[in-house]
C-alpha cells in the first residue's frame, strides 16, 4: 500500500528547483506499552505541580526559564520564545555538495524518500546528475516549526533526504582515550583474527527479525487467555583473563572440528 506523504517542499539546487513530497523511509514496528494504575488498570496521565505548594499548574500558565549558573535562571516570556521559532517555509536549500559518503553515518537521524511533486523531469534529472557526479548535498529546511539539517542523496534514480543530528549531539570517539594495559601478545591477536575470519560472512539484513516482539505478543495472548506464562532463568558465562588463550584455542579447535565434520 502506498504511504502518505508527510510533507511537501521544494529542493533548491543552485538556481534550479525540484518540487518534492516527503515519505518516511522507516516504519517502526516495536511494541508500545501504556502505563497503567496498578489497582484499577486505568491509564495514567501526567500532571504539572508546583514544587513548593504542590498545587496543580496548567500548562498554559507555566513559564520557561534558562538556567545560567548554579542556582540562577533567566525567565523567558512566551513571545520571546515565539520569536526564536524558525519561520515556516517550503524550501529545502542545498547549501553545498560533497563526495558521496563524506557525511558519516553517525550523523544520520532519520531517512525520508523524496517523490516528485509535479515536475518529474527535474526530479529525474537531479537524481541522475547526483549519481553521475557521485555527490550528496547538505541541505537545510524548516518543517513543522523545527529546523533540520540533512543529507540529500540519490540512489537508483530516487532522491532521499536524511535528517542529520546536530553537532552537539554526537560524541566523537576521537575525544576519548582507549583503555590501556600490557601490550597484547601477537599470538593471541593472530588467534583472535583467525577466529574472526572463521566467523566471517556476508551481511544479509533480511535474515534478522525481531523475535522478542513475537514473544511479547505471545506472552500477552497467553495471559489474555487466562493461562500462565513460562519462566526461565539465565546464567552468564565468564572468561578469566588468564584463560583467554585457552578460550581462543578451544574456539578455533571447535570450529575446525565443525568444518571437518
Amino acid at each position, binding site marked *: 500500500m502506498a504511504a502518505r506523504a508527510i510533507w511537501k517542499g521544494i529542493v533548491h539546487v543552485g538556481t534550479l528547483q525540484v518540487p518534492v513530497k516527503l515519505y518516511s523511509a522507516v516504519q517502526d514496528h516495536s511494541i508500545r506499552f501504556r502505563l497503567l494504575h496498578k489497582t484499577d488498570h486505568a491509564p495514567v*496521565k501526567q500532571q504539572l505541580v508546583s514544587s513548593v505548594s504542590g498545587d496543580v499548574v496548567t500548562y498554559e500558565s*507555566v513559564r520557561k526559564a534558562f538556567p545560567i549558573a548554579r542556582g540562577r*535562571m533567566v525567565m523567558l516570556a512566551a513571545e520571546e520564545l515565539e520569536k526564536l521559532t*524558525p519561520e515556516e517555509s517550503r524550501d529545502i536549500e542545498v547549501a553545498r555538495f560533497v563526495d558521496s559518503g563524506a557525511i558519516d553515518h553517525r550523523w544520520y537521524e532519520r531517512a525520508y524518500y523524496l517523490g516528485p511533486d509535479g515536475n518529474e523531469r527535474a526530479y529525474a*534529472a537531479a537524481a541522475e546528475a547526483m549519481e553521475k557526479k557521485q555527490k550528496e548535498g547538505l541541505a537545510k529546511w524548516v518543517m513543522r516549526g523545527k529546523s533540520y539539517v540533512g543529507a540529500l542523496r540519490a540512489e537508483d534514480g530516487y532522491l532521499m533526504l536524511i535528517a542529520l543530528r546536530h553537532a552537539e549531539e554526537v560524541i566523537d*570517539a576521537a*575525544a576519548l582515550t582507549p*583503555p590501556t594495559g600490557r601490550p597484547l601478545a601477537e599470538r593471541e591477536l593472530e588467534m583472535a583474527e583467525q577466529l574472526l575470519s572463521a566467523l566471517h560472512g556476508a551481511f544479509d539484513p533480511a535474515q534478522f527479525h525481531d523475535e522478542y516482539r513475537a514473544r511479547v505478543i505471545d506472552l500477552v495472548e497467553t495471559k489474555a487467555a487466562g493461562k500462565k506464562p513460562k519462566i526461565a532463568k539465565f546464567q552468564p558465562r565468564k572468561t578469566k583473563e588468564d584463560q583467554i588463550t585457552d578460550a581462543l584455542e578451544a574456539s578455533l579447535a571447535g570450529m575446525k572440528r565443525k568444518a571437518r565434520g
Partner: protein
Amino acid sequence: MADEDDDLEQPAGLRPFWSGTITFGLVTVPVALFTATRPRGVSLRMIEPETQSTIQRRYVCSKDEEPLDNDDIVRGYEIEKGKFVVVTDYELSAIEPRKSREIDLRLFVDRDEIDPMYFERAYFLVPAGGTNKAYRLLAEAMQRTKQAGIATFVMRAKEYLVAILAENGILRAETLRFADDLRSPEDVGLDDIPKPAGADVKKFEEQIARHTKKQVDLHDLLDDYTEQLEKLVAQKEKKGDHVIGMPEESSGGGGAGGGGAEVVDLLQVLSRSLGEAGAVRKSPKKTTTTAKRSSGTKRASSTKRTSSAKRASGTKRAPTTKARKTAGAKKR
C-alpha cells in the same frame, strides 16, 4: 503517548544503559554500554511565574486523578480499545532469549558492507569487570581486519540488531534497523521515474559542480535555535531582566522541565570508565597516568551546558569543541 513508557526509567546518561558481555567464540568481554549521543539543545526549566517555583511532573490516575508513585504503575498492552493485559518486568525479562545478557558475535562482516541506512543509534562500550584485555584484543582484531561483529540482543524489553565496531581502540555498538522496518521506494509507492533528458541532467551537473566543496563543514550543523536562545539569555542576564534564583530542592534535577540543573558530562564519565578497568591492579604509577589522562579529558571536554555558559559570558570556546564538530566529516 508512544514514549510514555520510557519516562519511568529515563537514563541520565551517566549510568550505563546496559551491562553484560560480548562473546566471540568462547571468549567473553564484559562491557557496559553508554549512549554516544546527547540530547540536542538546552533543556529549559518550567517555572510557576507567581511563586517562581519550579514545576514537577507527576503521574496521576486518569480516572480519579490520584497521584501515583512508580510502585503504583504497571505496564499494559492494549489488546483492544481500552482493554489492557498487564505485563510485569519479571515476565518481560523471563521471555528474553536465554542469552539476553550476552551480545554473541557469531557473524563478522566487512564494515563497508553495512548500508548506512541501517544505522540507528550509537553507544560506546567500556570494559567492565576489572579487566580489559579481552576488550582490547577484540577491538584490535576488528580494527586490523576492518570487520564489524553482528548480533541481536534484548535491552529494556526490546530486541536490537546491533553492529559492534572498533575505532581508535574503543568498541562501539551501533543499533541497526531491522530490514522489516525499512521501506523501499516501492513500499512507499514511488512510481518508476522516467529517464531524464540529457540537457536537464547537464544543468543540474553544472549547479552541483558550482556548489561542491571538498570538506563537509559541520559548523553548518550548528543549532541556530540554541545559539539564538543563548544570545537572548545573555542579554537578559546582563540587564538583570527576569533573573531569578533557583529553589534549592529542585537543583538536584528530577522531573522539572525534562533536565536537571546540573548537566553531567558524559565524556567525563566515559573517559573515567574507559580508564578504570585493567589499570586498577597495576603499579601506582599506572594509576597516576590514568588519573592524569581523565582529568585532561575533563578539561578539554566541556559539556553543552558549560560551553554555552562560557559563550554566554563572553569567553572563548574550548578548541576541542570545534574539533568535535568537524570530526564527523572524516572519511572512512
